[in-house]
Every structure is written in structure tokens, then in C-alpha cells.
């Protein structure tokens, strides 16, 4: 077991929110066509409120902290917030489109000891990337920022979210990342908006394209292993949880509302009314979430994909029940193995909601 796995196991056992994600604003200078947020800047936490939230997280044992948005650098206090988090010895990652990062900003990020800057790059071609972000010149500016960051020695990771517009660009973006000496991650799924609007999932790649992604060695490593069905389900799997959301991971919105994860819009409490500790340990919503083991899932517990499915309880929640299946993850499992999930085989199944995974 690696040290990280050991840390996660201990944090789960002790109920410690080892990781937290704070969106310090939902405002953004880009208007990405697939974004799951609205860009409302109303009622954002003040600098003092955000610092207090970060201090409370430190007191509860949070070690990994992601600062994101919207575009976090739109807040004038973004660096003050990041530096405060580093003073409290968090491992800090910044998720940004980076168009506001120049030499000075890169040097400041290096000096504070940020762990990584994560930047979304949609294509190596400006006309495609900029059409997705709706900000002319954004690819050029994001790539310039990556050069400033790497020149300072800041670790950078490029995330490539795939959708119809850029479905064929994954390998080229991966090569771009390689050429720039930065990490690369691919995300082939478009998720619904947090307000429950699923229309943006129309932008997602087709099931055939998803199968191709899962059979591309450069993206998944050993294709045979990655796509192999695994049907061994033991008590360790059944007694486990779908993911870390609400167990060792917390999300805090710009208005101070606490959720299990950024992709799990189940309200757990407001930092303007309660302490983080109170919400984390006493919220009824989180208590209920933590009571759900894999064996308690009516459909998924007897699915052939159970042992390795990336079932997202947040997506399931958005479909009606955190104990239910997530159509998106059923489709991913099917694309990976060629085997339909228990949910897809059930009599009541309809793929109508799964607009982004059309059968070819």
C-alpha cells in the first residue's frame, strides 16, 4: 500500500476531510461551452470568510487543498488566499485557465510553494480552443502562462476535456503537454450543470469515440488491463464506498455552502451559519451519505461492473438518488468493457437522459 493510500485509509477511518476544494468565485473571463457552473458572482465570501474557512479546514486535518472557480484569479485577493493557505502548510493546487498569469504571477506561485497549477487546454489549434472558451486569444495566453510557470519551476498539469468540438485533438494536446514538459490528463466526459440542466451533456463525445479513447494506449496505458471486465466482488468492495466525496473530501462554494464534492450538489450546511467542523461531523446529509456502502446500492451492488466502476454518487444524486446508478458511469463501464451494466439491462432503463452517449 502506498503512503497516499495509507493516508486515505486512515483519514476515512478517522472521518478526516483530508482533501478540500474551494471555489473562491464562480465568475470567469471565459465562457466555456461545456461549463457546469453559472457565472453568478453574488454574495461571494469575503477574504476574511475564505481565510476563516481555510483555517477551519486546517483545524479539521485537511492537507490537500484545491483553489478553483470560475476563474480564481479574477479575485484580487487570490494570491493572498493562496499564500495564507501555504502559511497553514496546505498542499495547494490552483485550477485556472491561466490567461492572467504572467512572469510576476508565476514567480509568486513558485515562491509560495504551490504544488501544481492545473490548466484546461482543449486543443492545440487556437480556432478550436478559443471557440470552446469563447475568449479570443485564450489558447495563446494559456500556453504563454504555462511557459512562464515552467520557467519558474512550477509544476503544471494540462487537462484536456473532450467534447464533440475537439474529439480528435486528444493526442495532439498530449503531445503539446509532452513538448512543454508538463503533466497531461484527459477527461472524456461532460457532466451536467450543477443547477440540474443536462443540456450541455449534448456536447459530449459519442459512445464510439468514448470506446476509442478507452482503447488508446497513450491515454489509458495497458488497454487489455484497462478494458478487461472484472467480476470478482468481495466483501471489501461491498463494504466500501463509491468514492471519497463526503468521506475524506469536501467542497465549499463561493458563498460558503458545503457539499460532499463539486459534482455532488447535496447541500450540507453553510459556513455563514455553522462551523465547518459542525457541518462535517453533524450534518444529516453527510451522515446519510456515509451510511451508504456499495452493498446498499439496490441496482449497482449486483452489477457485473461493481468491482471497478467509477460510479459517481453525485451524478446519481443529480439523476434522482445517491443510491441509484449514474447513467454516465454505466456508459463508461460499457464503453470500456463492451458489457452493459445492470441498470442498462433493467426493464425500466431508458437512455434518453444520456444524450451524450448515443448508440452509433
Amino acid at each position, binding site marked *: 500500500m502506498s*503512503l497516499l493510500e495509507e493516508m486515505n485509509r486512515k483519514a476515512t477511518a*478517522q472521518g478526516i476531510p483530508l482533501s478540500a476544494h474551494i471555489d473562491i468565485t464562480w465568475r470567469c473571463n471565459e465562457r466555456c461551452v461545456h461549463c457546469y457552473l453559472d457565472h453568478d458572482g453574488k454574495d461571494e465570501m469575503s477574504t476574511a470568510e475564505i481565510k476563516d474557512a481555510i483555517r477551519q479546514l486546517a483545524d479539521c486535518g485537511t*492537507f490537500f487543498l484545491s483553489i478553483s472557480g470560475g476563474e480564481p484569479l479574477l479575485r484580487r485577493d487570490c494570491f493572498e488566499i493562496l499564500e495564507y493557505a*501555504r502559511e497553514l*502548510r496546505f*498542499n495547494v493546487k490552483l485550477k485556472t485557465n491561466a490567461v492572467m498569469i504572467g512572469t510576476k504571477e508565476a514567480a509568486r506561485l513558485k515562491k509560495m*510553494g504551490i504544488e501544481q497549477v492545473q490548466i484546461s487546454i482543449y486543443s492545440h489549434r487556437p480556432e478550436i480552443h478559443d471557440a470552446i472558451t469563447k475568449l479570443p486569444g485564450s489558447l495563446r495566453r494559456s500556453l504563454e502562462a504555462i511557459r512562464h510557470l515552467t520557467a519558474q519551476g512550477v509544476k503544471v498539469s494540462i487537462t484536456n476535456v473532450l467534447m464533440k468540438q475537439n474529439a480528435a485533438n486528444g493526442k495532439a494536446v498530449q503531445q503539446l503537454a509532452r513538448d512543454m514538459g508538463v503533466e497531461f490528463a484527459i477527461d472524456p466526459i461532460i457532466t451536467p450543470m450543477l443547477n440540474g440542466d443536462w443540456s450541455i451533456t449534448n456536447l459530449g463525445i459519442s459512445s464510439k469515440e468514448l470506446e476509442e479513447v478507452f482503447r488508446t494506449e497513450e491515454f489509458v496505458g495497458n488497454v487489455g488491463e484497462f478494458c478487461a471486465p472484472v467480476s470478482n466482488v468481495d466483501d471489501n468492495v461491498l463494504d466500501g464506498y463509491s468514492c471519497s466525496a463526503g468521506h475524506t473530501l469536501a467542497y465549499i462554494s463561493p458563498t460558503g455552502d458545503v457539499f460532499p464534492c463539486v459534482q455532488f450538489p447535496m447541500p450540507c450546511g453553510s459556513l455563514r451559519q455553522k462551523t465547518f467542523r459542525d457541518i462535517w461531523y453533524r450534518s444529516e446529509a453527510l451522515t446519510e451519505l456515509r451510511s451508504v456502502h456499495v452493498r446498499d446500492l439496490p441496482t449497482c451492488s449486483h452489477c457485473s461492473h461493481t468491482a471497478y466502476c467509477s460510479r459517481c454518487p453525485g451524478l446519481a444524486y443529480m439523476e434522482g438518488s445517491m443510491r441509484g446508478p449514474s447513467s454516465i458511469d454505466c456508459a463508461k463501464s460499457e464503453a470500456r468493457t463492451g458489457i452493459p451494466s445492470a441498470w442498462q439491462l433493467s426493464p425500466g432503463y431508458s437512455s434518453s437522459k444520456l444524450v451524450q452517449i448515443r448508440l452509433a
Partner: protein
Amino acid sequence: MPLAETYLAKSTDIAARTLGDETIVMSTLDSTIFMLNPTGSVIWEAADGNTPLSRIIEKRVCAEFDVPVEQASADAQDFVDQLAKHGILVVSDRPIPQ
């Protein structure tokens, strides 16, 4: 002539958090990660730049873990050497301003 004291300070190039009686420490320079056991955590916590290692061993390690000074000193020196090698701890023969 008395032996030179050793002073310890936490590097600023780290992330760290105490979970129960253990401590996670990660270098922001090379992402090396350490999990300090309870004894290591006590030394880590006491590494304030001003308290000599000998006093940390005597007042904290020996007092809290019931080990003889000689054994604690040898283990502590090994621990300090390892963390210093990775830039996690700053070591000096005089107090380190914080």
C-alpha cells in the same frame, strides 16, 4: 569543550498536517511524501528553530515514549538526517530565526 548543539526548523518548502498522532509531510520541491510516526511527529512539532535536539529528546521523546536517551538520540539523529537530506528539516548548530 561541549559538543555543538543541533537546532531544527521546519522548511518553508513543505506541506504538513498532523492526523491523530501521526504527521504527513510533503516536499513542495520534489513531492516526496513522508508519514511521521508518533515519535517523529513529536520531534517535528518541537522543531521550532530554538529548542536544541538534545532537549527535544530529553523533554519530549524520552518523557513521552519511555525510551533511554542513548537509543532515542540515535533514532532521532537518523530521523533528522533523513528529513534534512530531503530538505524537509533545516539543521544548524545555532538557533534558526523563524
